[in-house]
Every structure is written in structure tokens, then in C-alpha cells.
């Protein structure tokens, strides 16, 4: 298999933010004391995530702790993540405001050999691998394409407000897709995952990001 280097987490996030992708507020802590300071500023509940260039699937090594409610839990979570990997592989720990639960979506990108940058949209989180419910387009896309992509997936009724739930903010998702398309067109990216993206009746949050570069 060809090894593709992943862009480090902070660079990924800053690249995405420059393209208007919204994330819950965050900071990167290098020590427990720094983590505590950031937590105070951000406010609880928080999510803690391992940052390491060498580890692609951070959940698999116990590198993700969610719903941290107070300082005590924070210090416990911090030391657990820090001890999960050798010190040399630990680049820091992401202290991120917990995004409220929304409809979990996936927005992604890929460099296709024949057609160049491609963008994907679908149900995210744990549903990705089970339902494989995604729509694809060759970039660049405009707002109409984005709207079509959103409405094309089988799970669309979930977004449109099934069973008395409020519909998600389609306009915000359209903007997100158009922005990711621009990002794919303007940068050399092999693969990109925003998963999950939490969609709300008002706005969205990209919770996790992974970018692979050539």
C-alpha cells in the first residue's frame, strides 16, 4: 500500500478554518496545567483528543475522551491519553468544546485519478460504513450541485426533519460543501474527511477532521 502522510491536526484545522469550515472552539495543550487553563477559558463539557502524526485512528488507541464535565475528569482524561502512546509520539492534546449532538454527517474529498478533486456528502459517524449512503460530485460544485447532493442521499428524510424533529440548516451545509469544494480545488489533497459533522437546525460543527496529502 502506498503510504500517504497525514497533515497534522492543527494544520488541518487551520486550513479548514481558513476555508470557512466551522469547528467548536479549541486549543492544543502540551501539559496538564495548560489543559486546565484552556478548559477554564472554553468552559465544560469538553472533548480531549490525542494529536500525533503517527497515529491515524486515535479512537483505536484510546486517544479520544468525550463529555469531560469538570477539572477532575479533565486531569484524569489527560493522563490517560498521554500514557496511551509513547512520549515521542505525543504532539499534544486537543482541548475542544463538546459539540452538542446533532445529525451526524460526513463531508469528504478525494483526488480521483481520472477526474481530479471529488467531493462527498453523506450520513456520518458510525453510519458511514454501514449504510455507505453518500452522494458524490466532481469539483468544483456550485450551490445547486450542493443542494442536489444533500437531497440525493437515501437518509435525506432524517435531514429534512423526520418524525417531528426540526430540519437541519440546509443553507449552512450548502455553504460548507461549496467551501470544501474550493479547498479541494485549491490545495493538493489526496483524501479529506470531516466526520462527524454535527448538523443543527441552526448551523453545524465539524467535530473531527483528517487530511491526507501526497
Amino acid at each position: 500500500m502506498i503510504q500517504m502522510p497525514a497533515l497534522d491536526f492543527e494544520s488541518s484545522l487551520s486550513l479548514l478554518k481558513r476555508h470557512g469550515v466551522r469547528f467548536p472552539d479549541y486549543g492544543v495543550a502540551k501539559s496538564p496545567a495548560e489543559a486546565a487553563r484552556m478548559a477554564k477559558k472554553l468552559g465544560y463539557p469538553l472533548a480531549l483528543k490525542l494529536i500525533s502524526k503517527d497515529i491515524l485512528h486515535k479512537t483505536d488507541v484510546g486517544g479520544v475522551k468525550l463529555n469531560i464535565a469538570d477539572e477532575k475528569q479533565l486531569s484524569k482524561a489527560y493522563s490517560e491519553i498521554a500514557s496511551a502512546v509513547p512520549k515521542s509520539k505525543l504532539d499534544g492534546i486537543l482541548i475542544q468544546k463538546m459539540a452538542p449532538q446533532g445529525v451526524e454527517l460526513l463531508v469528504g474529498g478525494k483526488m480521483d485519478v481520472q477526474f481530479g478533486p471529488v467531493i462527498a456528502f453523506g450520513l456520518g459517524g458510525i453510519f458511514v460504513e454501514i449504510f455507505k449512503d453518500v452522494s458524490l460530485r466532481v469539483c468544483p460544485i456550485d450551490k445547486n450541485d450542493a443542494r442536489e447532493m444533500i437531497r440525493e442521499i437515501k437518509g435525506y428524510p432524517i435531514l429534512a426533519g423526520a418524525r417531528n424533529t426540526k430540519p437541519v440548516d440546509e443553507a449552512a451545509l450548502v455553504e460548507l460543501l461549496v467551501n470544501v469544494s474550493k479547498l479541494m480545488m485549491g490545495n493538493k489533497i489526496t483524501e479529506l474527511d470531516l466526520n462527524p459533522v454535527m448538523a443543527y437546525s441552526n448551523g453545524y460543527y465539524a467535530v473531527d477532521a483528517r487530511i491526507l496529502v501526497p
Partner: protein
Amino acid sequence: MRNLDPIFEPKSIAVIGASHEPGKIGHVITKNFIDGGFMGRVYPINPNASEILGLKAYPTVGDVPDKIDSAVVAVHAELVPSVLQQCGEKGISGVVVISGGFSEVGNYKLEQQLVDVAKKYNINVIGPNCLGVLNPAARNDSIFLPMYKMGRPKVGDISFISQSGAVGGCIIDLAARAGIGMGKFVSYGNASVVDEADLLDYLANDDKTRVIVAYIEGVKRGRAFMDAAKKVTAEKPVIVLKAGRGKAAQEAAKSHTGALAGSHEVYSAAFKQCHIIEADGLEDLFNFSKILDYPICSGDRIGIITNGGGTGVLAVDEVEKNGLQLAKFSESTREQLRKLLPNYANATNPLDIVGDADSNRYEQAIDIVTKDPNVDFLVIIVLFQTVGIDSRVVNVIVKAREKGQKPIAVISTGGEYTEFHRRIMDSYGVPTYGSPEDALRSVAKFVGYCKAKKPVK
């Protein structure tokens, strides 16, 4: 855009590698030009013969005293670059290279030599490693398969491009048997010079082509293909069968998106963005192309006339399944139908004109229903097994097709007698189907294309 007229409509053609021996490809091609009634001049090229199949032969194209528009090359791969150079020196701008033995067997160097010569002399090369070109209207036939083994379709306006020679041969043979008229056919093989994007561009501007059908294993230039396809589909429908649903790329992927956006899925997305109609199999190519030969459809409301209740119900199921609407007949239509039908029949859609219907009743029912403003498309079910039905119903339907008030499709399920009548209708441009499934799926593609062609609100 490449000018491919010399390839499709040459006035004079050289067969390089023409041969005396019946087993040789160069023999079959020369013979096909003669037997097929090619109206231009044919020059067999062979350094070891002075005459082939009654035609004067020349050692090289350079020895021919007249102007030559196009050449078909069927010589050993190693000889192709030098032969191509001779074509260039002679001023031939369109060459079909039948010969195999290039990149498809790993001989990239030889193919590059071919490309270099083509560039130097500005030659549009089809192939190498291809089946040839067919243009029934010009009686131009460089397909190297003998006529007694593979039928040739009548003149029509559906054009086919095929990356594979084998699939291309099947397409021609099936089209000939089904009575489907063909505009132009080209098997483009390795596409080393002229590729699918070039062919789409050319056929887009070809006023003798109304529908384009393509068999593709992989495109050479994805973006150029999309640009060309977008332009064409605004004018005429393009149907594509994409083969090779490779999984290798997906296995190598590291992200979710990488795994989900496999090569075939990306092709499908690209097709959708260009309003290309994707076919699921070879049969689809014919099912879809013959209905897309209609110029336009006003909407998705389907009227159904049948002489068999059950088949009518099956058709209604398929209307729903394919996202179409069952038309609601107007009051005036119902009034007229009540007068026409026996009192035990219902004047509703699907209109069952019952088992004793004959061609007269069909004629009147078709006339009434086509005039209904609530009907966009008419599906006529004719079960030929019944006592009242004979060949006369074919005339009725063909006449209705020629009047052209509403697009029509026919469903006739059955054996040889049925198939015989279907073929007649198909050859008069009435799309016929052997089942409600095939018919309504095809109608849906047609309706969908017409909708996409209209400006998006």
C-alpha cells in the same frame, strides 16, 4: 475540435495491408468495402500484389496517383509507424489503425512512436487495436468482421462509440437484428490520438446523429470528457455503459471518503453532473437509445392502453416504481372512450380495451388518448396472442408514431410471432419492449433527460 469527416465520410480510401488470402483481416476489409457498396474509390495497398479482389493494388500509398482521404491500416504492429508516416507524407488526415500489439500488451514505446508520427503530420488516428469504423449512410465500413457473420444495421441516427472491439461487434450485430438504425459507429481501441472526448465533440456537431451511445472502460482525460459531455447533452442525449468496476483503488484508501468514492462511483457522479444517462448492461443501451430518439416529452404523466388487464397492472406498478405519474384522463376523453368500448370495460387509465380488441379499436383508443392534454407519454400494450390481433395493429401504431403527437412506447411480451412484429415496429422508429419493466425504466430515463434539458428552476 478534430475534423473527423475524412474518417467517417471519405470519398477515397486506402486499405493498407490488403490481402488475397480470405483469412486475413486486410482481405475482409477490402471485401467489405466492395460488397458493402462503398461509393468512393478503394486502393488496396500491398507491396507484393498488383491486384486484389479485382482492384489495382499499389506498393505504398505514395504510389497512388490520386488524392486519398482516409486509410485503414491492418499490418503488423511494428510496421504501423512507418506506414503512418507514408500516410502523413501523402496528406491523408484520417487513419484507422486496426492492428493490435501496442500499449494493450505493454508495448508503450511503439504506441508512443505512433503518437509522435500522428502529431508530426497532424493525422487523426482511430485506434490502434480497434475494430474499425462504420457509417451506413456513406456505406463506409472498415469493420473487419465478415458480413455473413455479423449483420450491418440500416441507416439511422443513433451513433455508437465503443472502447472495446468485441462489445462493439456485438452492438452492431444486435442493432442490425433488432432493426435499430445506426448513424455512425466507431470502435476506438487504445484511443492514443483520438479519444472519447474528441469523438463526443465530433458527434455533438454531427447533424446526422441524434443519440450517442458509448461503451467505455475508462476515459483518458476525465475533465475534457466532462466538458465535451456537458456540451453534447444540452443538445442530444448520451447513454454510457461503463465497464470495469474495479475495487483496487478503494482497498488502498485510508479515509472514509477514499473508500466510498471508488472509481466507479466517481464515474457515476461525473456522468450525473453531465446529464449522461448511465446504462446497467448491454440491453439497456438499446432499450434507452431507441426511446431517446424522440425529440422531446412534455412531462411524466403516462397513459396506458392495453388488451390484457394483468400486463396493464404490471405496467402501472412500474410507472410508480420509476417515479412516473399515471395520467388522469380528462372528462372528454372518458366520454369518448365510453362510446367506443363495450359496456363491460372501464374508461379509466390504464385503459383496458379488453381481450377482443382489434386494430380498429386500438386505432380509435390511441387517437382519443393521444389528444388528451393530461397525457404526456403513451404506453401501448399489445398482446399478440389474442384472436383479435394481427399485423394490422402494427400499421395503426406506426401511423400514430408518424403523426408524432405524443411519444409512444409499445410493450409486447411473447414468442416468435410477437418478436417478429416488434422488430417491424422498432425498424419504423417505434420503441418496443418485451416487458413492462424494460419499457417503463426506459420511459423514465427519457422523461428524466427531457426534464434535465429544461433550465433548472
